[in-house]
């Protein structure tokens, strides 16, 4: 097997270590310097490949993404459409995402932001709060990440529902789906979590109209993609007091520009896209497993549906 490693930002060394250890005999070539004859490349292992690049490898058997999100790659008009594309699903990344979500749900559930303000004011005052079962958490996007976060939150006693394009069955998690399910899902949700990927159908899904269906004083946690949110509509809902607070990890432009109003908004808690990240040590094993499958004539496990966009 000959692979081309295409990642303009990341260091190839840890990937080379883990992939060559996991797949003996692997010929690991870093694009652009080591590629050699493009016709020899069997598999492209990619993160943010430049548009038009992938079509230059005439004998590709598969494209494997080092990232969970593939939206930027799918915008390549020259992307070969007949080659299977595998998306990274890494349990360590899933776990990281779940921890990020659980942290923020607990943060709002237990009024950590109020206590921080009280400490600055030197004020000693307990704030009553409901039992977890009386907090209704709603997760937008119920793929591998959403399902894992939903189970973890349900395990802590929260009342959890999920919304996705198609119905999902998870023990103890109420399922809403499709356009008709969105409004009732929002109406029952105190803490809204978006794990939506960026696709044409999720673009701007969280906007003035959808936010207005949330009950008064709701919280919003976005760890999916920035494109799902209409920023000005979210800020308006926070400013009016209709919504209590928002935790944002993803943005339309990253790094978030220094003059973006989110930075200094008193009701926005901001993190620099850290909910989940690719670690070569764990992700490399997942990519290696797909390389072995392709070498044996099979397909990657988590196939991207080009029409669905993820």
């Amino acid at each position, binding site marked *: 097997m000959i692979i081309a490693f295409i990642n303009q930002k990341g260091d190839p060394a840890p990937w080379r270590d883990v992939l060559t250890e996991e797949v003996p005999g692997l010929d690991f070539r870093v694009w652009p310097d080591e590629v050699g004859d493009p016709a020899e490349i069997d598999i492209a292992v990619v993160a943010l490949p430049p548009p038009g690049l992938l079509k230059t490898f005439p004998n590709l058997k598969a494209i494997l993404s080092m990232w969970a999100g593939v939206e930027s790659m799918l915008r390549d008009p020259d992307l070969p459409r007949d080659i299977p594309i595998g998306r990274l699903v890494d349990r*360590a990344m899933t*776990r*990281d995402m*779940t*921890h*990020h979500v*659980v*942290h923020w749900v*607990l*943060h709002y*559930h*237990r009024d*950590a932001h109020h*206590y*921080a303000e*009280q*400490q600055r004011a*030197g004020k*000693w*005052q*307990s*704030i009553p709060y409901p*039992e*977890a079962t009386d907090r209704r958490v709603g997760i937008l996007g119920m793929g591998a990440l959403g399902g894992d976060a939903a189970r*973890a939150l349900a*395990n*802590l*006693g929260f009342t959890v529902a999920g919304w996705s394009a198609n119905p999902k069955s998870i023990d103890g998690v109420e399922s809403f789906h499709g356009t008709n399910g969105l409004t009732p899902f929002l109406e029952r949700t105190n803490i809204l979590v978006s794990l939506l990927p960026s696709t044409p159908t999720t673009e701007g899904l969280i906007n003035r109209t959808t936010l207005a269906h949330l009950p008064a004083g709701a919280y919003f946690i976005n760890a999916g993609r920035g494109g799902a949110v209409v920023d000005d509509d979210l800020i308006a809902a926070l400013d009016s007091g209709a919504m209590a607070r928002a935790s944002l990890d993803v943005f339309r432009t*990253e*790094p*978030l520009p*220094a003059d973006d109003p989110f*930075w*200094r908004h008193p009701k926005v*808690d*901001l*993190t*620099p*896209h*850290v909910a989940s*990240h690719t*670690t070569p040590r*764990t992700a490399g094993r997942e990519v290696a497993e797909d390389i072995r499958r392709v070498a044996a004539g099979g397909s990657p496990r988590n196939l991207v549906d080009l029409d669905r966009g993820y």
Partner: protein
Amino acid sequence: MALLFGGYLADIHDPDVWRALLRRHLPDLDFRVWPDGVGDHRDIEFTLVHDPAMGELKRYPNLKAIFTFGAGIERIMKDPEVPAGVPVVRLVSVDMVNRMTEYVLYWVLHYHRDFHRYFAQERQAHWEKYRGPTTAERRVGILGVGELGADAAQKLIALGFDVAGWSRRPKSIEGMESFAGDDGFLPFLARTEILLCLLATTPATEGIINARTLAALPKGAFLINPGRGAHVVDDDLIAAVDSGHVAAAALDVFYQEPLPATHAFWRHPRITVTPHAAAWHAPEHAAEHIAHNIRRILDGKPPHPVVDHAAGY
């Protein structure tokens, strides 16, 4: 059947609220409030007390059980005149355990994932990512593995952390490494990056988190204390945080509560103060627990859980 209510901290424990809640479960309960409503001392079979005065409890000859709010246990245990053989029943409810575990998970995740640094960065509009150890590599250590410690350990293990516990005697919890006794203490600290204190206060544990203990932790460790304020030597903790040996601390309990306005903890940039709010007894759940135990005692069964007089908790 008379119960004496000693709501010394009336702002927290309103007798009218407790009377109504307990009568919901025990309609015949004769609910008396100390000190004016005691009546004939011989009538009193149960007490529900918060930090009773020394010697007070021996004045009730027909006492069948002493129910106590958490903070009262230490005083009762130090009182040489507490009638022998009368069980001291602790307030434990699933609800209270859940609330404590929420607090613990929040702070472990907070430090594990560098949120304390991101919060500081946000104020400067600074975008920088940190990559610490993975969850499986992150070593959490729990001092005190009773009901609260055991639940926290199980939930932390379920989230994927590397969890150890230290207690007087070894404890068996699936997936948790158990350290015990004096010999186990330093090895437990040496492997612990996030130290969580859920000990009960006894003479043996007072000041257990001191300069020597903190120095035994690896550099950059975190402390989370929702147990009892008397466990921590405040000045030693401040020195350890100032030196950077301890990266940050979340404290919910203090030697003196409310924490005095002049205390250095309030304004320390790497110490978080919450007002003894990690867990509390929702009165409706606690009343159910008390009523359940009163019925058990009247049926001739032992109450649960009772304080072990020898161990002091």
